[in-house]
């Protein structure tokens, strides 16, 4: 059995987000990407995902109202990793409608058969889910008032898996 620690932090762009971002990550750097180019080894495919203007852009609904898969996923296939201290910084869009929220997720421990996903949603909810046996199971669901939804507010999401 292994122990996983989940932590998340948020910072508003106007308040020097770099000072808060991913604070406390420890150990040697295995992988780092600021998306200045497309050499990071992510699975990308327009129109769902692209690297542009120093960001990895994930279009959740690029194919419109008839789209059946309303997720966009980019997996890093060139830097395999299991245990580690993962952190990403991202900007959430506005929710599409009061009953149609958008989420950003960090996936880890991805194998052929299973994966974990820690998500932050525009309704200020965090969820941890596990995919296995061809379906997703939600492990926990929790409201988090600190999630920032203001335009250009940078959220940081950190997962320590060990």
């Amino acid at each position, binding site marked *: *059995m292994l*122990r*996983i620690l*989940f*932590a*998340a*932090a*948020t910072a508003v762009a106007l308040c020097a987000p770099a000072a808060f971002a991913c*604070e406390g*990550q420890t*150990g040697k*750097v*295995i*992988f780092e990407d600021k*998306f200045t180019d497309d050499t*990071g080894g*992510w699975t990308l495919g327009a129109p769902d995902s692209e690297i542009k203007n*120093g*960001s*990895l*852009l*994930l279009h959740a*609904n690029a194919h419109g*109202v*008839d*789209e*059946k898969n*309303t*997720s*966009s*996923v980019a*997996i*890093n296939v060139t*830097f*395999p*990793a299991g245990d580690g201290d*993962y*952190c*990403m910084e*991202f*900007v*959430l*869009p*506005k929710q*599409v*409608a009061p*009953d*149609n*929220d*958008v989420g*950003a997720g960090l*996936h880890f*421990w*991805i*194998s052929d058969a*299973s994966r974990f996903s820690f998500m932050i949603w525009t309704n200020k909810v965090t969820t941890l889910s596990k995919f296995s046996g061809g379906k997703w199971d939600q492990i*926990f669901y929790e409201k988090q008032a*600190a*999630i920032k939804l203001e335009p250009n507010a940078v959220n940081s999401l950190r997962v320590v*898996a060990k």
Partner: protein
Amino acid sequence: MNGSQIKVMRALMPTGELHFGVSATVMKASDANPVVEIKSFKLTTGE
């Protein structure tokens, strides 16, 4: 949040080569095309 811990859990790590990734999801399809903007990603060995 803001540096505080949300949850500590125990789980069984899968075997074999493992990877990581990022995602954006919208609950229902619509004519809108919301975009999640990933600014940076960093992975360290941890303690």
